[in-house]
Protein backbone atom coordinates (compact mmCIF):
# COMPACT_ATOMS: atom_id res chain seq x y z
CA UNK A 1 0.00 0.00 0.00
CA UNK A 2 1.13 3.53 -0.70
CA UNK A 3 2.03 6.12 1.90
CA UNK A 4 0.45 9.58 1.76
CA UNK A 5 3.62 10.97 0.14
CA UNK A 6 3.29 8.51 -2.77
CA UNK A 7 -0.21 9.68 -3.72
CA UNK A 8 -0.99 12.43 -6.25
CA UNK A 9 -4.19 13.83 -7.72
CA UNK A 10 -5.09 12.09 -10.97
CA UNK A 11 -3.50 8.73 -10.11
CA UNK A 12 -5.77 5.99 -11.43
CA UNK A 13 -5.75 2.30 -10.67
CA UNK A 14 -7.83 -0.57 -12.04
CA UNK A 15 -8.69 -2.68 -9.01
CA UNK A 16 -10.33 -5.73 -10.59
CA UNK A 17 -13.61 -7.08 -11.90
CA UNK A 18 -16.46 -9.21 -10.54
CA UNK A 19 -19.37 -11.12 -12.11
CA UNK A 20 -22.68 -10.71 -10.28
CA UNK A 21 -24.42 -14.07 -10.73
CA UNK A 22 -28.14 -14.50 -9.94
CA UNK A 23 -27.20 -16.69 -6.96
CA UNK A 24 -24.83 -14.09 -5.47
CA UNK A 25 -27.36 -11.29 -6.03
CA UNK A 26 -30.12 -13.22 -4.25
CA UNK A 27 -27.85 -14.38 -1.39
CA UNK A 28 -26.80 -10.81 -0.57
CA UNK A 29 -30.37 -9.51 -0.97
CA UNK A 30 -31.89 -12.17 1.31
CA UNK A 31 -29.52 -11.03 4.06
CA UNK A 32 -29.48 -7.26 3.62
CA UNK A 33 -31.93 -5.96 1.03
CA UNK A 34 -34.88 -8.35 0.55
CA UNK A 35 -36.83 -6.20 -1.90
CA UNK A 36 -38.65 -8.10 -4.64
CA UNK A 37 -36.56 -6.77 -7.55
CA UNK A 38 -33.36 -8.09 -5.89
CA UNK A 39 -34.82 -11.55 -5.16
CA UNK A 40 -36.81 -12.67 -8.18
CA UNK A 41 -36.14 -12.54 -11.95
CA UNK A 42 -39.78 -11.89 -12.92
CA UNK A 43 -40.20 -9.12 -10.31
CA UNK A 44 -36.93 -7.62 -11.55
CA UNK A 45 -38.18 -7.60 -15.15
CA UNK A 46 -41.36 -5.80 -14.09
CA UNK A 47 -39.39 -3.17 -12.11
CA UNK A 48 -37.59 -0.01 -13.23
CA UNK A 49 -34.41 -2.14 -13.36
CA UNK A 50 -35.64 -4.39 -16.20
CA UNK A 51 -34.13 -7.57 -14.72
CA UNK A 52 -32.89 -9.22 -11.54
CA UNK A 53 -30.76 -6.39 -10.12
CA UNK A 54 -28.03 -6.47 -7.48
CA UNK A 55 -28.65 -4.44 -4.32
CA UNK A 56 -26.69 -1.22 -4.52
CA UNK A 57 -25.07 -2.16 -1.21
CA UNK A 58 -23.91 -5.40 -2.80
CA UNK A 59 -22.23 -3.40 -5.58
CA UNK A 60 -20.55 -1.11 -3.02
CA UNK A 61 -19.44 -4.03 -0.86
CA UNK A 62 -17.92 -5.82 -3.86
CA UNK A 63 -16.07 -2.62 -4.79
CA UNK A 64 -14.66 -2.57 -1.25
CA UNK A 65 -13.72 -6.25 -1.56
CA UNK A 66 -11.72 -5.63 -4.74
CA UNK A 67 -10.07 -2.49 -3.35
CA UNK A 68 -8.92 -4.38 -0.25
CA UNK A 69 -7.63 -7.29 -2.38
CA UNK A 70 -5.75 -4.83 -4.60
CA UNK A 71 -4.23 -3.14 -1.56
CA UNK A 72 -3.15 -6.47 -0.12
CA UNK A 73 -1.56 -7.41 -3.46
CA UNK A 74 0.39 -4.14 -3.44
CA UNK A 75 1.43 -4.72 0.17
CA UNK A 76 2.83 -8.18 -0.72
CA UNK A 77 4.74 -6.65 -3.65
CA UNK A 78 6.18 -3.95 -1.39
CA UNK A 79 7.13 -6.52 1.25
CA UNK A 80 8.87 -8.68 -1.39
CA UNK A 81 10.99 -5.65 -2.30
CA UNK A 82 11.83 -5.07 1.36
CA UNK A 83 9.81 -1.83 1.50
CA UNK A 84 7.87 -0.64 4.54
CA UNK A 85 4.15 -1.35 4.20
CA UNK A 86 1.67 1.45 4.77
CA UNK A 87 -1.38 0.32 6.76
CA UNK A 88 -4.32 2.53 5.79
CA UNK A 89 -6.66 3.81 8.45
CA UNK A 90 -10.45 3.75 8.54
CA UNK A 91 -12.68 5.88 6.33
CA UNK A 92 -14.78 8.67 7.82
CA UNK A 93 -17.37 8.21 5.06
CA UNK A 94 -18.19 8.94 1.44
CA UNK A 95 -20.25 11.29 -0.72
CA UNK A 96 -21.98 11.39 -4.09
CA UNK A 97 -22.66 7.68 -4.42
CA UNK A 98 -24.55 7.03 -7.66
CA UNK A 99 -26.17 3.81 -8.79
CA UNK A 100 -26.16 5.06 -12.38
CA UNK A 101 -27.44 1.93 -14.11
CA UNK A 102 -28.67 -1.36 -12.69
CA UNK A 103 -26.21 -4.21 -12.22
CA UNK A 104 -28.17 -7.19 -13.59
CA UNK A 105 -27.58 -10.92 -13.15
CA UNK A 106 -24.63 -11.98 -15.30
CA UNK A 107 -23.07 -8.51 -15.53
CA UNK A 108 -19.31 -8.23 -15.02
CA UNK A 109 -18.29 -4.95 -13.40
CA UNK A 110 -14.74 -3.59 -13.57
CA UNK A 111 -13.83 -1.22 -10.76
CA UNK A 112 -11.28 1.60 -10.79
CA UNK A 113 -10.14 4.31 -8.40
CA UNK A 114 -8.87 7.79 -9.26
CA UNK A 115 -7.45 10.23 -6.71
CA UNK A 116 -9.32 13.58 -6.59
CA UNK A 117 -7.88 15.39 -3.55
CA UNK A 118 -5.04 14.96 -1.05
CA UNK A 119 -4.55 16.97 2.14
CA UNK A 120 -2.90 16.59 5.52
CA UNK A 121 -4.99 16.00 8.63
CA UNK A 122 -4.99 18.95 11.02
CA UNK A 123 -6.00 16.88 14.02
CA UNK A 124 -3.80 13.85 13.27
CA UNK A 125 -0.35 14.89 11.93
CA UNK A 126 0.64 11.25 11.31
CA UNK A 127 -2.18 10.87 8.79
CA UNK A 128 -3.16 12.39 5.45
CA UNK A 129 -6.66 12.44 3.97
CA UNK A 130 -7.21 11.19 0.43
CA UNK A 131 -10.42 11.44 -1.59
CA UNK A 132 -10.80 9.11 -4.56
CA UNK A 133 -13.59 8.63 -7.12
CA UNK A 134 -14.27 4.90 -7.23
CA UNK A 135 -16.20 3.70 -10.29
CA UNK A 136 -17.70 0.53 -11.75
CA UNK A 137 -18.10 -0.08 -15.49
CA UNK A 138 -20.02 -3.01 -17.00
CA UNK A 139 -18.97 -5.35 -19.83
CA UNK A 140 -20.61 -3.00 -22.38
CA UNK A 141 -18.48 -0.07 -21.22
CA UNK A 142 -21.35 1.70 -19.39
CA UNK A 143 -20.49 3.51 -16.17
CA UNK A 144 -22.87 1.96 -13.61
CA UNK A 145 -21.53 2.99 -10.20
CA UNK A 146 -19.54 5.85 -8.73
CA UNK A 147 -18.75 7.37 -5.35
CA UNK A 148 -16.29 9.78 -3.78
CA UNK A 149 -14.51 7.89 -0.99
CA UNK A 150 -12.42 9.37 1.81
CA UNK A 151 -9.65 7.53 3.68
CA UNK A 152 -6.96 8.21 6.27
CA UNK A 153 -3.55 7.33 4.77
CA UNK A 154 -0.40 7.15 6.94
CA UNK A 155 2.46 9.56 6.32
CA UNK A 156 5.89 8.10 5.74
CA UNK A 157 7.51 10.95 7.64
CA UNK A 158 5.00 12.34 10.15
CA UNK A 159 5.62 15.98 10.91
CA UNK A 160 8.11 16.34 8.03
Amino acid at each position, binding site marked *: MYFFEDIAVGQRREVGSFTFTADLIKTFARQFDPQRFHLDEEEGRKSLFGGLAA*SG*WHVGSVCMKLMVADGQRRAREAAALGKTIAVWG*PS*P*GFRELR*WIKPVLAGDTISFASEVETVRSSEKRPEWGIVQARNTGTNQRGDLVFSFLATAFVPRRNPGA
Partner: protein
Amino acid sequence: MTLTFEDFPPGHFGTFGPRHVTREEILAFAAEFDPQPMHLDEAAASRSMLKGLSASGWHLCSIMMRMMVDGFAGRSASLGSPGVNEVRWLAPLRPGDDLMLDIDVVEARVSRSRPETGIVTLRSVARNAAGQALCEMVSPMIMARRAAGAAERAG
Protein backbone atom coordinates in the same frame (compact mmCIF):
# COMPACT_ATOMS: atom_id res chain seq x y z
CA MET B 1 -51.56 -1.01 3.34
CA THR B 2 -48.72 -0.19 0.98
CA LEU B 3 -46.90 3.02 1.87
CA THR B 4 -46.65 5.47 -1.02
CA PHE B 5 -45.01 8.86 -1.62
CA GLU B 6 -47.84 10.59 0.26
CA ASP B 7 -46.93 8.71 3.47
CA PHE B 8 -43.50 10.41 3.67
CA PRO B 9 -44.09 14.07 4.57
CA PRO B 10 -41.02 16.00 5.77
CA GLY B 11 -40.32 15.47 9.48
CA HIS B 12 -39.63 12.54 11.78
CA PHE B 13 -40.69 9.30 10.12
CA GLY B 14 -39.93 6.59 12.66
CA THR B 15 -37.47 4.68 14.81
CA PHE B 16 -36.71 1.04 14.04
CA GLY B 17 -34.90 -1.77 15.82
CA PRO B 18 -33.33 -3.05 17.92
CA ARG B 19 -31.08 -5.13 15.69
CA HIS B 20 -28.51 -7.19 17.60
CA VAL B 21 -25.15 -7.52 15.79
CA THR B 22 -23.00 -10.55 16.62
CA ARG B 23 -19.22 -10.98 16.42
CA GLU B 24 -19.76 -13.92 14.05
CA GLU B 25 -21.64 -11.83 11.48
CA ILE B 26 -19.07 -9.01 11.71
CA LEU B 27 -16.28 -11.49 10.99
CA ALA B 28 -18.26 -13.23 8.20
CA PHE B 29 -19.02 -9.97 6.36
CA ALA B 30 -15.44 -8.75 6.76
CA ALA B 31 -14.02 -12.06 5.49
CA GLU B 32 -16.14 -11.81 2.35
CA PHE B 33 -16.12 -8.08 1.57
CA ASP B 34 -13.65 -6.13 3.72
CA PRO B 35 -10.84 -8.35 5.03
CA GLN B 36 -8.83 -5.61 6.71
CA PRO B 37 -7.18 -6.57 10.03
CA MET B 38 -9.23 -3.95 11.96
CA HIS B 39 -12.41 -5.90 11.02
CA LEU B 40 -11.01 -9.45 11.40
CA ASP B 41 -8.29 -9.66 14.00
CA GLU B 42 -8.70 -8.64 17.64
CA ALA B 43 -4.98 -7.87 18.23
CA ALA B 44 -4.53 -5.86 15.04
CA ALA B 45 -7.84 -4.07 15.69
CA SER B 46 -6.71 -3.00 19.17
CA ARG B 47 -3.68 -1.28 17.58
CA SER B 48 -5.81 0.47 14.92
CA MET B 49 -7.32 3.96 15.05
CA LEU B 50 -10.63 2.33 16.03
CA LYS B 51 -9.04 0.65 19.12
CA GLY B 52 -10.82 -2.68 18.95
CA LEU B 53 -12.69 -4.98 16.61
CA SER B 54 -15.30 -3.13 14.55
CA ALA B 55 -17.61 -3.95 11.65
CA SER B 56 -16.90 -2.86 8.09
CA GLY B 57 -18.66 0.41 7.31
CA TRP B 58 -20.27 -1.31 4.32
CA HIS B 59 -21.63 -3.94 6.69
CA LEU B 60 -23.17 -1.23 8.88
CA CYS B 61 -24.74 0.42 5.82
CA SER B 62 -26.06 -2.94 4.63
CA ILE B 63 -27.60 -3.62 8.06
CA MET B 64 -29.19 -0.15 7.97
CA MET B 65 -30.67 -1.06 4.57
CA ARG B 66 -32.11 -4.26 6.05
CA MET B 67 -33.58 -2.32 8.97
CA MET B 68 -35.23 0.05 6.46
CA VAL B 69 -36.67 -2.86 4.46
CA ASP B 70 -37.99 -4.55 7.63
CA GLY B 71 -39.17 -1.26 9.11
CA PHE B 72 -41.06 0.23 6.18
CA ALA B 73 -39.51 -0.15 2.70
CA GLY B 74 -40.65 -3.77 2.42
CA ARG B 75 -44.29 -2.67 2.64
CA SER B 76 -43.83 0.44 0.53
CA ALA B 77 -44.13 1.26 -3.16
CA SER B 78 -40.34 1.76 -3.27
CA LEU B 79 -38.94 1.61 -6.78
CA GLY B 80 -35.30 1.68 -5.70
CA SER B 81 -32.77 4.43 -5.11
CA PRO B 82 -30.53 6.42 -7.45
CA GLY B 83 -27.74 6.72 -4.87
CA VAL B 84 -26.61 8.11 -1.53
CA ASN B 85 -25.82 11.79 -1.02
CA GLU B 86 -23.57 11.21 1.97
CA VAL B 87 -22.54 8.59 4.50
CA ARG B 88 -20.62 9.53 7.63
CA TRP B 89 -19.12 6.73 9.72
CA LEU B 90 -19.03 8.45 13.10
CA ALA B 91 -18.09 5.68 15.53
CA PRO B 92 -17.30 1.98 15.25
CA LEU B 93 -19.98 -0.74 15.29
CA ARG B 94 -18.81 -3.28 17.90
CA PRO B 95 -19.65 -6.95 18.43
CA GLY B 96 -22.78 -7.28 20.57
CA ASP B 97 -24.15 -3.80 19.78
CA ASP B 98 -27.93 -3.36 19.57
CA LEU B 99 -28.71 -0.90 16.79
CA MET B 100 -31.62 1.50 16.57
CA LEU B 101 -32.35 3.37 13.34
CA ASP B 102 -33.87 6.84 13.46
CA ILE B 103 -35.33 8.13 10.19
CA ASP B 104 -36.34 11.64 9.18
CA VAL B 105 -37.74 12.73 5.84
CA VAL B 106 -35.69 15.78 4.84
CA GLU B 107 -37.35 16.36 1.46
CA ALA B 108 -40.25 14.94 -0.55
CA ARG B 109 -40.90 16.08 -4.10
CA VAL B 110 -42.72 14.80 -7.16
CA SER B 111 -40.40 13.58 -9.93
CA ARG B 112 -40.28 15.86 -12.96
CA SER B 113 -39.29 13.09 -15.38
CA ARG B 114 -41.73 10.50 -13.95
CA PRO B 115 -44.65 12.41 -12.37
CA GLU B 116 -46.29 9.14 -11.25
CA THR B 117 -43.41 8.85 -8.76
CA GLY B 118 -41.86 11.01 -6.05
CA ILE B 119 -38.41 11.29 -4.55
CA VAL B 120 -38.21 11.01 -0.78
CA THR B 121 -34.86 12.00 0.77
CA LEU B 122 -34.21 10.33 4.12
CA ARG B 123 -31.72 11.05 6.86
CA SER B 124 -31.04 7.80 8.69
CA VAL B 125 -29.00 7.66 11.89
CA ALA B 126 -27.89 4.33 13.38
CA ARG B 127 -27.24 4.42 17.13
CA ASN B 128 -25.95 1.87 19.62
CA ALA B 129 -27.75 1.06 22.89
CA ALA B 130 -25.93 3.94 24.61
CA GLY B 131 -27.47 6.32 22.07
CA GLN B 132 -24.14 7.08 20.37
CA ALA B 133 -24.55 7.84 16.66
CA LEU B 134 -22.49 5.35 14.62
CA CYS B 135 -23.51 6.26 11.08
CA GLU B 136 -25.50 8.99 9.39
CA MET B 137 -26.79 8.49 5.87
CA VAL B 138 -28.67 10.89 3.59
CA SER B 139 -30.25 9.06 0.68
CA PRO B 140 -33.11 9.47 -1.79
CA MET B 141 -35.70 6.73 -2.47
CA ILE B 142 -38.04 6.67 -5.44
CA MET B 143 -41.64 6.02 -4.30
CA ALA B 144 -44.72 5.48 -6.42
CA ARG B 145 -47.53 7.99 -5.83
CA ARG B 146 -51.07 6.84 -5.15
CA ALA B 147 -53.19 6.37 -8.26
CA ALA B 148 -54.25 9.79 -9.59
CA GLY B 149 -57.95 9.21 -8.83
CA ALA B 150 -57.22 8.11 -5.28
CA ALA B 151 -54.95 11.12 -4.76
CA GLU B 152 -57.73 13.48 -5.88
CA ARG B 153 -60.24 11.86 -3.54
CA ALA B 154 -57.73 12.07 -0.69
CA GLY B 155 -56.90 15.66 -1.55
